[in-house]
């Protein structure tokens, strides 16, 4: 965990309002665990004031390059999208705990389910799992065709199913519809996406083993401010985990969604 001004290598819009940002810096050497995130300061004024959490989407350790994918939403990501090659970004990271890679063994199959801007961390995960001889099946959900990204990239690593809400690409509906329609076998489930999606997934495959990556509004991103706290299933009412420092990845069922 470090704070560093990393250098922008490239920035491009790869889908509607979805940007792929590559940066280079010493700190990237530490980014070995898929599912971790970084906390970016996008302005040197106090507008916006807080950092923005963005997942690690891909890492090239050989040249210390980090790839992030983000959706241009509000002030912060709009400013981020204006960063040009050669400019720097204030990066704090890597933060949190990633997806356990040793919960599954070579030859087994991992199902990766991603929704929208929850897809990015699954890509680095897919690459690392594949490296370890694990088979990958990915189910990726988007709003519509223009919002979809990284389909081909995942296809290089394993089987890919796409769902779009409007049916413009792949199955019409949600990722859960894909799971209903297709007969997918897997040993472990990894998922990241909006809480509604994770809830639907939990309801549909209640016995699945695996890991969810969660989101919450953050203050510090490092566990100091108690902004991102969640209840624990079956715990005391005062028991909690912090998404930023205990997560963002948790075993399925651990955290009350």
């Amino acid at each position, binding site marked *: 965990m470090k*704070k560093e001004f990393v250098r922008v290598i490239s920035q491009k819009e790869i889908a509607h309002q979805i940007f792929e940002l590559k940066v280079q810096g010493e700190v990237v050497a530490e980014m070995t665990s898929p599912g971790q995130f970084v906390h970016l300061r996008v302005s040197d004024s106090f507008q916006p004031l*807080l950092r923005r959490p963005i997942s690690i989407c891909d890492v090239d350790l050989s040249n210390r390059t980090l790839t992030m994918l983000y959706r241009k939403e509000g002030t912060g990501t709009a400013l981020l999208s204006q960063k040009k090659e050669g400019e720097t970004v204030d990066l704090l990271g890597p933060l949190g705990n990633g997806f356990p890679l040793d919960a599954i063994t070579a030859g087994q199959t991992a199902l990766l389910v991603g929704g929208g801007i929850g897809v990015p961390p699954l890509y680095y995960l897919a690459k690392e799992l594949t490296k370890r001889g694990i088979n990958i099946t990915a189910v990726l959900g988007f709003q519509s065709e223009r919002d979809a990204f990284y389909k081909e990239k995942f296809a290089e690593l394993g089987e890919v199913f796409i769902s779009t809400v409007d049916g413009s690409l792949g199955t019409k509906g949600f990722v859960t519809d894909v799971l209903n329609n297709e007969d997918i076998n897997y040993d472990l489930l990894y998922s990241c996406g909006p809480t509604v999606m994770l809830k639907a997934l939990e309801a549909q495959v209640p016995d699945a083993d695996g890991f969810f990556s969660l989101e*919450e509004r953050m203050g510090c991103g*490092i566990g100091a*401010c108690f902004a991102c706290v969640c209840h624990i299933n079956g715990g005391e*009412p*005062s*028991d909690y985990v912090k998404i930023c420092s205990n997560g963002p990845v948790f075993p399925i069922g651990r955290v009350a969604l």
Partner: protein
Amino acid sequence: MNKLSVSLPGLEMKNPIMPASGCFGFGKEYAGFYDLSVLGAAAIKAATREPRFGNPTPRVAETHSGMLNAIGLQNPGVDKIMENELPFFQSYDLPIVANIAGSTVEDYCEVARKISKHPQVSALELNISCPNVKEGGIQFGTDAATAAALTKKVKAVSSKPVYVKLSPNVSNIAEMALAVEEAGADGLSMINTLLGMRLDLKTRKPVLANKTGGLSGPAIKPVAIRMIHEVSQAVSIPIIGMGGVSSAEDVIEFMLAGASAVAIGTANFVDPYVCPEIISQLPELLEKMNVNHITELIGGSWKECGIPSLSR
């Protein structure tokens, strides 16, 4: 000679800088970034009698040059804090300020009595100004007589100096300050957050689950400065100043206004290294200002001319 040292009741500080309560957890996280012993002191997250989960999320929202928080005093309770959190500071050389909160006078006294005995605790900070809990906290912070009565009771049971943390959400901050000074407070902490709210245009509801939250960050700095300027001239106990500090220049401004030490809250989220960085910048800044020792700055905006200012 250490040009930065300041001495406050119970707090012998290498420099006037401390992280503010609630913005520093119980220290462990920031220990991953720097050696905590460089700090003048540190204020830990509020302790209550029983464990508290706090408010539902979202608990933070941004505003222009500021943020709203409604954590709701989440903490594991005074016993667990004493057992599991405070011993961590043994490995560091810095005084710890224990922030305490409660719903009743008895709560406050129980927590104060207990935690003031802990060897790692150098002083207490009486949080009568948390805007984010329904009961406890802020009602003690907006009525002078109630605040004074609480201060007296807590002083009676505390074995360490007591700083009272004032709320800025009052008509007359000097009256509050004088009341708690009279009641025996050893010092003041000010300011806590301003009550604020933000609405989400999509849902048409408040962004925070708790609806209202406490406004902190650079946006509130001018409010903090004017209150410290006013109160420091009215009382004779020292003030730990805070509210929007994010640079060494801000620290100087707070001390000129009348603060004897300066706490840094929100800025830690923007930059986890902000406290050590400010500490390292202070000596040069003092040199530039021709100041031999930082304590010379305290109240400098009103002291030099000798005329107490009429700031209302």
